């Protein structure tokens, strides 16, 4: 019963937004659109809530798998392939139109790889569970539904103004259609266990963001959309190669069994997983706009604000970190873990440094997204239970606060005519409610006791436990820079001259207010409900994965912080300066003040002078171009050096295991002559033997004639070596002894327990 409910609710969440998107494509009327987008959003939110309430109790105990009829699953496989081909066809069409041939070649290469994989490799691999629900996917679904739909509602009013402001052709119907299709694809990503389905949805989000960024069709927009496409196709390429690799090396095409298989590999065998893991990580980096791929997200600013809000908070970038959080049990203290952790840490610091010099508020928000995602990615790389706990909370709080900030900036931009921070001077007077909302968003991003900072605190604790100095240093300096750019933005907005007469807020659309209030409610509500979310969802999820887990800060502290954040939010929202019993004086400006709002005063020559004051951007200390270039160089160096290292170790281990596996399978087959075996066979034979041992260690002896896997492999190797010596008649028995000891050495550090790498 529950099984069917799961199947239906997941497919509803995936297909309903797509159906809505198709309808919206043909609705050209603003008013009619209002009546579709509003109810559709409400339905999606209700469906996501229903799903979470129904399944949260069971997913807290274990993942909930959905079985799909085999023939239907096969049909969906072909549909996915068809969608992949369609997407590439669209990309090819746009590339030819805009003469971007490099992207075109990459897209076609990727398509060839995917078609070959889907037709010739994938069918041979059995996929047991195509869909699943776990606590993380429920959390993600709620974020996508509530925040994503909130942004769609906001877009109703915003796009109306946007069409009036901008010179480009009004293609709002396409815009809304893509927004909803995006949501559908995101649901598909979070619920797919079948990696090739996930890949298909992954590509849909790439193309959707490409279309959204290029919405205005100006030269700049087109260039930036192609930049986004290029980076994400590189990521997609890495994803596809990892898919092929994992199918070949481990024989799995399911995300959860991939994670289980890789995490349970012994230390030496886990070397084989580095390359696919790093490729998947790179796919995640491109989506999550990590250095060196951060440029596409900054370029995405040219699109209308709802696009940025959607990309930054609930979709695109969150797909990247979602994948990394899923993979995090495989990371931990190994090469791939360091790789992910360092890239995340470097991104956190360099993006924060870049944000300091920005006076464009949207670019500040973009760099802060990149920086925060870097922190999440670093947590994934650390891969301990505390780190994952922090990563999930960072993701949740960031989604709410960042969407609030983008929506506020978008509305402010339409009313004050600029997105520059210097023009937001006196926003507290001009748009009192909006600036309060915005200050809640900013506080939520960087200051205790709001959830984001508490999660950062948990991240710091988990980093200390890794005993890795580099990541701690990166975190503390990055945090300092974060304070810098948020505090000066907040300060600029809070300036007030007690003049509330000319409020610009009257012309804000109701739909915008609805969305803004929803986001404020979420930002504050999540901080207050923090302890409940922790004990009700995140701790069970983490302890499911790691078999350990408690509240990482302590429940009493949680409630104290929740209460404190409620009080502070209330102060900011409800406080109105009372001018009644106070004598108001002009501001001192080295003369007799005339007008505090204008900052004008009478100078020593009895003339009028205006004082001006700009925020600090410290361009000479943190120049954006040089800083981001440095970040890109460091991260590319990391990718190449660690990637090279991974290839070297893999090839060595492949050589070692080749001998062992060939020997063991030959022993098993009683055929010492079959020395030529391909890579897939030997790895799977190794994994097979390991699995057999783990399933029933007692009966292992009777089947394989050895007490455990280690001794099995060393025995086999010895027999193999002996057979070699007997074949080569002139070798002495001394050589055999040497072979013995070296074989024992190479396998003795081979723990067979169910641990990840050390």
């Amino acid at each position, binding site marked *: 019963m529950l099984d069917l409910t799961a199947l239906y609710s997941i497919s509803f969440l995936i297909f309903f937004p797509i159906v809505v998107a198709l309808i919206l494509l043909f609705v050209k009327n603003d008013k009619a659109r209002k009546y579709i987008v509003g109810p559709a959003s409400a339905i999606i939110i209700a469906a996501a809530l229903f799903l979470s309430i129904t399944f949260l109790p069971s997913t807290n105990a274990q993942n909930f798998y959905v079985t799909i009829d085999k023939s239907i699953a096969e049909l969906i496989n072909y549909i996915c392939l068809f969608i992949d081909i369609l997407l590439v066809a669209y990309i090819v069409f746009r590339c030819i139109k805009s003469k971007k041939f490099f992207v075109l070649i990459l897209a076609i290469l990727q398509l060839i790889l995917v078609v070959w994989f889907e037709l010739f490799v994938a069918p041979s691999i059995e996929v047991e569970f195509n869909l699943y629900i776990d606590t993380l996917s429920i959390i993600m679904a709620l974020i996508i539904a509530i925040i994503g739909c909130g942004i769609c509602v906001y877009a109703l009013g915003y796009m109306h103004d946007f069409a009036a402001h901008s010179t480009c052709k009004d293609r709002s119907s396409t815009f809304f259609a893509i927004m909803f299709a995006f949501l559908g694809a995101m649901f598909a990503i979070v619920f797919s266990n079948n990696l090739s389905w996930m890949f298909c949805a992954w590509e849909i989000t790439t193309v959707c963001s490409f279309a959204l960024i290029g919405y205005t069709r100006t030269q700049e927009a087109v260039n930036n959309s192609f930049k986004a496409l290029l980076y994400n196709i590189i990521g997609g390429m890495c994803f596809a190669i990892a898919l092929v690799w994992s199918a070949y090396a481990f024989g799995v095409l399911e995300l959860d069994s991939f994670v289980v298989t890789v995490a349970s590999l012994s230390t030496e065998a886990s070397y084989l997983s580095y390359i696919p893991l790093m490729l998947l990580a790179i796919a995640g980096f491109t989506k999550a706009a990590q250095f060196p791929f951060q440029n596409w997200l900054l370029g995405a600013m040219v699109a209308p604000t709802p696009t940025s809000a959607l990309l930054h908070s609930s979709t695109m970038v969150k797909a990247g970190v979602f994948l990394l959080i899923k993979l995090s049990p495989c990371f931990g203290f190994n090469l791939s873990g360091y790789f992910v952790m360092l890239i995340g840490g470097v991104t956190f610091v360099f993006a924060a440094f870049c944000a300091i010099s920005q006076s464009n508020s949207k670019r500040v928000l973009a760099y802060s997204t990149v920086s925060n995602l870097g922190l999440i990615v670093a947590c994934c790389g650390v891969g301990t239970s505390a780190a994952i706990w922090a990563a999930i909370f960072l993701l949740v709080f960031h989604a709410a606060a960042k969407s609030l900030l983008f929506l506020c900036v978008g509305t402010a931009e339409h009313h004050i005519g600029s997105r520059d921070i210097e023009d937001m001077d006196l926003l*507290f007077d001009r748009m009192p409610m909006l600036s309060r909302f915005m200050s809640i968003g900013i506080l939520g991003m960087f200051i205790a006791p709001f959830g984001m900072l508490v999660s950062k605190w948990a991240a710091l604790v988990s980093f200390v436990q890794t005993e890795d100095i580099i990541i701690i240093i990166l975190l*503390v300096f990055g945090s300092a820079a974060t304070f810098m750019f948020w505090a000066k933005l907040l300060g600029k907005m809070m300036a007030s001259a007690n003049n509330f007469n000319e409020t610009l807020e009257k012309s804000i659309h109701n739909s915008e207010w609805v969305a803004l209030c929803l986001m404020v409610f979420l930002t504050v509500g999540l901080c207050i409900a923090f302890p409940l979310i922790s004990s009700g969802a995140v701790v069970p999820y983490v302890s499911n994965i790691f078999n350990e887990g408690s509240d990482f800060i302590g429940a009493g502290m949680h409630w104290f912080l929740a209460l404190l954040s409620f009080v502070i939010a209330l102060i900011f929202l409800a406080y109105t300066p009372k001018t009644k019993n106070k004598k108001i004086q*002009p501001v001192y400006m080295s003369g007799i003040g005339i007008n505090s709002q204008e900052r004008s005063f009478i100078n020593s020559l009895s003339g009028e002078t205006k004082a001006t004051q700009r925020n600090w951007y410290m361009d000479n200390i943190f120049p954006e171009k040089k800083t981001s270039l440095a970040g890109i160089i460091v991260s590319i160096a990391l990718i190449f050096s660690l990637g090279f290292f991974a290839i070297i170790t893999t090839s060595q281990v492949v050589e070692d295991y080749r001998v062992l596996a060939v020997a063991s399978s030959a022993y098993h087959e009683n055929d010492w002559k079959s020395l030529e075996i391909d890579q897939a066979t030997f790895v799977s034979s190794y994994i097979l033997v390991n699995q057999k041992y783990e399933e029933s260690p007692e009966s292992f002896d009777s089947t394989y004639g050895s007490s455990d896997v280690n001794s099995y492999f060393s025995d086999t190797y010895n027999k193999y070596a002996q057979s070699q010596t007997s074949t080569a008649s002139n070798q002495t028995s001394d050589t055999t002894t040497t072979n013995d000891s070296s074989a024992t050495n190479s396998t003795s550090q081979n723990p067979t327990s169910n641990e990840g790498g050390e």
Partner: protein
Amino acid sequence: MDIMLILCIAFAIVFVLLAPFVGAIISGIDRKVTAKMQGRVGPKILQPIYDVLKLLGKESATVNPAQDFFVLLYLIFVVIAGIIFFSGLDFLLCVLIITLASLFLIIAAYSSRSPFAELGAQREILQVMCYEPMILIMAVGLFMANGAFNIYDLFNAQLPIIVYLPLIFIGFIFVLTIKVRKSPFDISMSHHAHQELVRGVTTEISGRSLAYIEISHWYETVLFLGWVAMFFIFCNPLVSAILCVASVIVVYFLEILIDNNFARVKWQSMLKYSWIVALLFGGVNILVLMVL
């Protein structure tokens, strides 16, 4: 109620009631010693208290009521941070709350809309950026040496944490100069007049609000000296008490000495030096702890 909780609450109450007086007297001694160093007689020891009492009785006039409100919040959160520290709770939480308090001071300065206060506010932000890495590294060091961020765990330790964190202690003393607003790092609200800054953050703060600023400053001084003393606590109460008092006196005298012997530096130098110190002293100390 167990004995730990009662002790925590008792310490918190003692802090809230006594810290302003201790802070005021420290500030009075500070002025006296400074005067002696400059060859002046100096004011009475209790002069800071008289000043604040006078400020409290002034007519309330302001450029902007929002500013006074944020100053009040600043005072409240400094006190909360102090309560967290002196009741032996989480050190990192104390650091985070004191950052929140300084944010309120920054907002207060911005909201006044005085160009001088705004300049001071930006310098104050820069100061936070300068000392934050070192303070966070200090928290990490505390966690590594102590096994937790809790202060009360220090009373069970065999050795005071200064043994493990000597370099971090030096680095902390360096940024402490910024936190207690002493020259050469008094760039955001100097006690002495500076033409480009007037009075920085507090330019437009007067009367009762200025008194709050002074009181918060007393609380802060006691809190930061508590951070100094934290390095010398271990399981022997008598010895650690002597070490704590001695270290506090030495460190504060050192601060006065630095204050009187260095000219104000440019903010660029402050940023450079404080980050280098954090990286060098903090980083090396953490690295050594990890290796051991």
